[in-house]
């Protein structure tokens, strides 16, 4: 469950000798949203994103056709790349939650995974999403009930729920929670329980004091 387990190893990478037009082609051909640029020894020099590649319309209008052509074919990748110093990176042994936090906080969709300055992989929002969703979703082929329970955002409440489940000898497949978006005094927990019926879950979890089952479905 670490970044190194879920990153894309051997990502496609750009070289400083590429022109902007080559980079555009390379990224389009390979359906890349992000392209780390490396020097010899896969040392991170920068990052090109689709955003950094966009030719701004304003600029387009101000350039004449010769300039556009020159811009695209002769300017090199370093004109459009985010320099390494400004690229947010992560190490391979960070947890995937850490990576998710880093991305969300910095509003970036991808993190080059760097060890000793060397690019060893790249991890994207989608990689994390696939994995985090899988963690919460568990396997699709076990009959399970997914319940969302609202409880006071105070220590001990999650334990009450887990105990209620344990008391039934039910198996927890996944469990997690977060502060309610609308009301920070409320904590929303999601739990997946296998081999039970919705009714049984409703009854047992509904009886926990101060807890309220807000959503219940087979999942």
């Amino acid at each position, binding site marked *: 469950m670490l970044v190194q387990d879920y990153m894309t190893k051997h990502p496609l990478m750009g070289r400083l000798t590429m022109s902007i037009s080559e980079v555009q082609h*390379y990224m389009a051909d390979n359906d890349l949203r992000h392209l780390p640029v490396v020097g010899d020894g896969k040392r991170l020099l920068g990052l090109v994103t689709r955003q950094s590649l966009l030719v701004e319309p304003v600029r387009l209008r101000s350039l004449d056709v010769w300039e556009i052509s020159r811009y695209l074919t002769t300017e090199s990748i370093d004109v459009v790349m985010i320099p390494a110093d400004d690229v947010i990176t992560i190490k391979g042994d960070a947890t995937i939650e850490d990576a998710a936090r880093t991305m969300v906080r910095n509003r970036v969709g991808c993190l080059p995974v760097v060890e000793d300055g060397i690019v060893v992989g790249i991890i994207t929002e989608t990689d994390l999403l696939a994995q985090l969703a899988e963690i919460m979703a568990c396997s699709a082929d076990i009959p399970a009930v997914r319940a969302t329970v609202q409880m006071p955002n105070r220590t001990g409440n999650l334990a009450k729920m887990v105990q209620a489940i344990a008391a039934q000898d039910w198996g927890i497949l996944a469990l997690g929670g977060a502060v309610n978006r609308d009301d920070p005094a409320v904590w929303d927990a999601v739990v997946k329980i296998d081999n039970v019926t919705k009714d049984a879950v409703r009854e047992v979890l509904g009886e926990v004091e101060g807890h309220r089952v807000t959503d219940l479905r087979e999942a």
Partner: protein
Amino acid sequence: MAQNRWVADDSHRVQTPILEAKNLAVSYEIRDGQVNAVRDVSFKIHRGETLGLVGESGCGKSTVAFSIVRFLGKNGRITGGSIRFQGQELQDLSEREVRSLRGDQMAMVYQDPFQSLNPCMRIGDQLCEVLQEHRGLSDREASVRAIQMLDAVYMPDSAAVMRRFPHQLSGGQQQRVVIAMALLNNPALLIMDEPTTALDVTVEAVVLDLVDELRRRLDTGVLYITHDLGVISRVADRIGVMYAGEMVEVASAVDTFIRPMHPYTEGLMRCVPKLGLSKESSSLYPIRGRVPAPTALPPGCVFEPRCDYARRRCREKHPELRSVEREHLVRCHRAEEIRETEWRPSDETILDLQERLRSRSEDGSKVLEVSDLRTYYDQESKGILSLFGLGEKRQVKAVDGVSFEVGAGTTLGVVGESGCGKSTLARTIIGLESSRDGKIDFLGFDATLPLSRRDKRLIKDLQMVFQNPDSTLNPSFPVGYQIARPLRRFGKVDRARIGDEVVRLLNRVKLDGSYYDRLPRQLSGGEKQRVGIARAFATNPRLVLCDEPVSSLDVSVQAAVLNLLMEIQQEHNSPLLLIAHDLSVVRFFSDAIMVMYLGKACEIGPAEAVYAPPYHPYTEALLSAVPTADPRVEQKRIRLSGSVPSALNPPTGCRFHTRCGRKVGTICETEEPPEIGFGDQHRIYCHLPLEELEAMDAVITA
């Protein structure tokens, strides 16, 4: 929990293959023109995927590999198509850029690890050099990283290995060092050209496991080149079959083996014995003819001259590599029409042979009886004392008390890793080594005598087929002369009829009279081995010893040579002693099998009994390691650590105890294992209790 996960694949990731070859063509300039060694080859290797490239020698596999790393030499060049590495056209890159990629993002491992190692440099220095050159690490950092990498390839005592020179390591260890070196820069692509061909089956298994694990862990794309269908079945996700410089089929490993669609692939599959099958229950069908030279390709399908399904269209039109099913490409006009079940061998005699093998009866008479045979060598100590003559003389106990017998018309297979003494055993019987002790009774002769003291009759009746015919064929004399020599020497045939007899023998091994005057270098490997067989059987011997008779041959030639051996054996009713590392071949060919370890027999018995439980733990490990040419087969994963201990100082007690996974206790270290009989002459030498032996699971399940 269950295996079904909703994100079944990495479809959300970048789908660009690590390597993609499209219509690749490679030519070599030769004196009188150009050889189109590789034509129209297309394939992809995705991240974390191993593409196996198979095909007989001379089909262009290695040329493809060299064209990727731009190692084609002065006279070779890519003449068409493209190779994209990580989505970039390699041909667009400068020599400097390719060189930087080669160290950094692609790596290559060759058959011979020595080719990649500098014999004059310590392992550690060689590894660190790579890191320092590409990564600019300090000595200390490089050294730490190098040791980590040696650990990653399961090198025992990696810190010590760092200080050694290449020659101080075993072949398997050397190959692991080479793989470690290749992986130091975490390449996206690893090209391996027959990396395990020189290794024992047990070491090969470890190396193959390693490659597979590293591929999965590092997501490296692997191009794995081999002629060995068993190896490729174990290691490859997808397989590309090359023939005469063309890619003729690309499919998943399972499809390649289970539902091959190209007649050539089908043919290859018919050449290899499936592990567990015997000559009575199945036949090997060599592909007739031979691979055409790139300068003399047929006008239509290149395989047409050898194809049993060929039609007129195949002669006239060169087929394209086309997608017949999802992810299954075939270069055959008739791929959808042909049905393997409808195939009949062109050479019906093979079916006759199987029939004859099935109906043969053993008369039970013994031809060879070996009792407690011991062959020891003296070896000078290599220590400094030996310089002063003070070195203690040490004995290598190559064969150390082996007993067995071979009945008339039957084959005894002998298996075991290198260094187990199986070749020494054969050389002792044939008289090339002197035994120290024990008896060899061959039809009443005492065959413990050295060759120089043997009776002419004994020599005539006891012949041998060697692994490498080159080493026994005199390159200066024509083939006919060399077959005629034993005839002349033993006077079996009238001198005037010797020429006719030689031609008859050549025909017998399916060579025509024109070979009479050819020199060995004008022959292919298979042809040389046929000559070797013709020569061995020329004197109509009573026992033939075969030491790896087919291991250096392509599968199709192998099948033909094996069929030939069986045929001739059947004709002469001569027993055979077959030494081979290929356990499928041994199982296929032999009636009885002896498993040797460090000069001793571990297990001996009828072939089907030895290949089924109960096993000696060593047999079990060997069977677990053997690559089977069937990806559906499941094998228990038992891996021996280390290599065979030195016969100079063999372990006490049971010699296998140092590597045994089923060691009982100190008894294994102190006492010779007892013989446990299972009836029908099946014997196992092991301390394991009978119950445990009998409770063993089968290693291989289909």
